[in-house]
């Protein structure tokens, strides 16, 4: 806090010591309007004119009204640059090296006092910025919210290029500042709704790798950008200005990706990236924007530890996988005659699988001496008989998947009544959507609206889905995760007299999924539902049920065969059987065929068929 008052006091003194020559009003205004100054201050144009900075922190501004006035901030900064050099670290030249460089260049300020910025210089020398890499942690199937992804930057020094190791680089990450390590849903909600401030953090990249690769089982995509060392350096100078500075953080728009795009625009003036994201900035979309701007030079894929474990185990026979599991539990089996009898190459693969399994089991836990001892024993065995290097095919690039928003147009018939349906889904991907770039069995939908126009010009709201998340992660011999789903919103169901009623609902389910074959998933979940239905006596009616089906990735697209049932406490029983096939027409275009039969105690079985055109756009 005194950091703020001190320079203010001292700069007042500074004025007495050395009057700062201010440029004329016209020049000041021109500079204040300059797009570069606007981006340095993170200003945003307001709807009814004027500016407001995204920065939510008084420490970032030298002027009292700096947050709303680029001009005032500019004048105060010019003033501040001329302050007495005794301020040292607190001097505006040291606090704002990026502003200093730009103003010095724009106004040809040859007479600025020379200030020693020891802290900045040491920090900058340690970072030694040379290259910038955009890093995208990919989705993890059992955590569908990770499908939105994240973006962070990796800053490499000049030495990194030659050495081929990224473990000495720094990661620049913008994220919400959470107090405490609580994991409740409240924290997720607050993150979505802007309840946390956001801050930049600079930390060793290897920590980020550990976090994403081991703890969250997410693959990392590293996009090397063609920023020159000077541009990367300019960006890092500005990052110093943002140290411990608080921004607003909103998951959808003012998020990690948005802030990083702002940084890239500062690195290379003239880049137009953030204007492409007026509403939301979904990380995968921002990766696309960076690629389209021609910034990407090279792409590197870094698989997660879980992916490496499964890849190492892939060529093993079931008996060999059993060996791996047995060894992980008891490394004494290495001496076992039956194991020794196996061919050496198979032993090598089994050993490494066992080791990786042990490490996977240890992830996120307190150090367990037993696990550590067994892991160590396996490492020694690997050292004696190393397996061939693990090669993992690079999957589809995440930005090559379909775009985030879906526009839907359909024609169909429900029990001989024809209809046209118009739909919009804000984000993101369901079980049938074009698969490239997404995991099979993962669904996350936000903001889904469907309107129907029946023959006779009878309009009806068919569905307003708030959230629909499904995570059908297959179990295998090595790993046995749960499958789960959560949905809430408004939808049409059977009502009295055979009518269709719009009901509010919340339902969830848990169960298991298996790979029935290479391209087929089979799943079975037990479900619970709570509904507000006008024709039911109670305000909220619970139901228990099941949801099971097959998801088949065939040559045309994804096919989903699903059987669902809800047994209500009040006696109503609803069942449905559905078949959906998507025809993938292009990266951002699909044709979906649906046939569904619904049963209810309140009406005769109902049939519905529909042909829907899906356009994935923005």
């Amino acid at each position: 806090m005194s950091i703020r008052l001190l320079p203010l006091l001292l700069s007042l003194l500074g004025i007495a010591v050395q009057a700062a020559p201010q440029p004329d009003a016209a020049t000041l205004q021109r500079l204040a309007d300059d797009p570069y100054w606007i981006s340095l201050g993170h200003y945003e144009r307001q709807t009814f004119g004027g500016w407001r900075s995204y920065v939510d922190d008084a420490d970032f501004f030298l002027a009292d009204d700096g947050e709303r006035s680029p001009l005032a901030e500019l004048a105060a900064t010019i003033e501040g640059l001329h302050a007495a050099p005794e301020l040292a670290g607190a001097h505006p030249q040291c606090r704002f090296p990026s502003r200093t460089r730009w103003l010095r260049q724009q106004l040809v300020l040859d007479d600025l006092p020379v200030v020693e910025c020891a802290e900045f210089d040491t920090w900058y020398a340690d970072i030694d910025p040379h290259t910038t890499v955009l890093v995208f942690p990919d989705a993890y199937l059992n955590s569908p919210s990770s499908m939105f992804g994240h973006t962070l930057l990796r800053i490499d020094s000049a030495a990194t290029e030659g050495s081929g190791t990224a473990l000495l680089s720094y990661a620049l990450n913008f994220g919400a500042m959470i107090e405490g390590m609580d994991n409740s849903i409240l924290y997720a909600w607050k993150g979505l709704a802007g309840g946390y401030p956001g801050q930049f953090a600079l930390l060793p990249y290897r920590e980020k790798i550990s976090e994403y690769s081991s703890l969250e089982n997410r693959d990392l995509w590293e996009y090397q950008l063609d920023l020159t060392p000077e541009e990367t350096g300019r960006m890092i100078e500005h990052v110093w200005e943002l140290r411990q500075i608080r921004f607003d953080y909103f998951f959808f728009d003012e998020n990690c990706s948005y802030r990083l795009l702002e940084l890239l625009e500062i690195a290379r003036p003239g880049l137009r990236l953030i204007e492409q994201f007026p509403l939301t900035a979904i990380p995968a979309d921002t990766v696309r924007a960076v690629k389209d701007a021609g910034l990407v030079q090279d792409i590197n894929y870094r698989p997660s530890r879980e992916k490496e474990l499964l890849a190492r185990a892939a060529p093993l026979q079931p008996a060999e996988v059993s060996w791996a599991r047995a060894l992980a539990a008891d490394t004494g089996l290495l001496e076992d005659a039956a194991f020794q009898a196996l061919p050496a190459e198979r032993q090598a693969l089994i050993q490494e699988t066992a080791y990786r399994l042990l490490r996977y089991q240890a992830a996120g836990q307190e150090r367990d001496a037993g696990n550590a001892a067994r892991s160590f024993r396996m490492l020694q065995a690997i050292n004696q008989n190393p397996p061939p290097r693990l090669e993992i095919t690079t999957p589809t690039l995440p930005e090559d998947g379909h775009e985030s928003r879906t526009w839907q147009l359909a024609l169909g018939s429900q029990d001989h009544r024809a209809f046209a349906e118009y739909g919009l889904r804000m984000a993101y991907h369901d079980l049938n959507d074009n698969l490239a770039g997404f995991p099979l069995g993962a669904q996350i939908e936000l903001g889904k609206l469907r309107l129907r126009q029946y023959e006779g010009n009878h309009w009806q709201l068919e569905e307003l889905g708030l959230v629909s998340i499904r995570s059908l992660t297959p179990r295998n011999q090595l790993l046995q995760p749960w499958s789960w789903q959560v949905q809430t919103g408004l939808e049409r169901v059977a009502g009295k007299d055979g009518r269709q009623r719009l009901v509010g609902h919340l339902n969830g389910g848990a169960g298991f999924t298996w790979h029935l074959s290479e391209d087929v998933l089979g799943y079975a979940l037990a479900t619970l539902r709570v509904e507000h239905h006008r024709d039911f006596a109670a305000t909220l009616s619970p139901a228990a049920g099941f949801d099971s089906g097959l998801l088949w990735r065939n040559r045309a697209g994804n096919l989903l065969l699903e059987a669902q049932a809800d047994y209500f406490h009040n006696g109503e029983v609803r069942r449905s059987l559905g078949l959906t096939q998507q025809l993938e027409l292009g990266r951002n275009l699909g044709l979906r065929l649906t046939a569904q039969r619904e049963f209810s105690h309140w009406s005769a079985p109902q049939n519905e068929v529909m042909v829907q055109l899906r356009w994935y756009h923005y």
Partner: protein
Amino acid sequence: MKRILLGSLLAAASLNAFATAPGGPGCGWGNMLFEGQRGLPSHLVASITNGTSGNATFGMTSGTNGCDTSGALAYHGKSMIVLSSIMNELSEDMARGEGEALTTYAVVLGVPAEDRAHFAAVTSQHFNDIFSSADVTAEQVHAATLAVMKQDAVLAKYADQA
């Protein structure tokens, strides 16, 4: 000599800094090197906030996740900081004889590019000397590595300057 002194300074510090200094048991091999939790709720929170807890770290003083780096750490201490944060990965790479962590270790030890392959081969051969037990500490690994390097004609000169 300077190396050994620095190493013992750090070891001494570790006795006081409860189980978190480089060389302390909490920072040794096999440890999960960061505080984190698994399970669905933490995934959810992590992917929505993508954030950090506490005051956002900002550069060289942001130690090694659970391994305390306070105390007098000159620039030469960097190899120890790096080593303690990549112990697990390094042990795997050294067992196999190749990998990113092994290369990183060579870099911080001052081994130039042309000798790194040799470094990898030699250290891998002496895996049991360097990673001598499941409870080995960063400091022990570091000391053992230098000892192995000194025995090798090509690598000995780097051991002295590291």
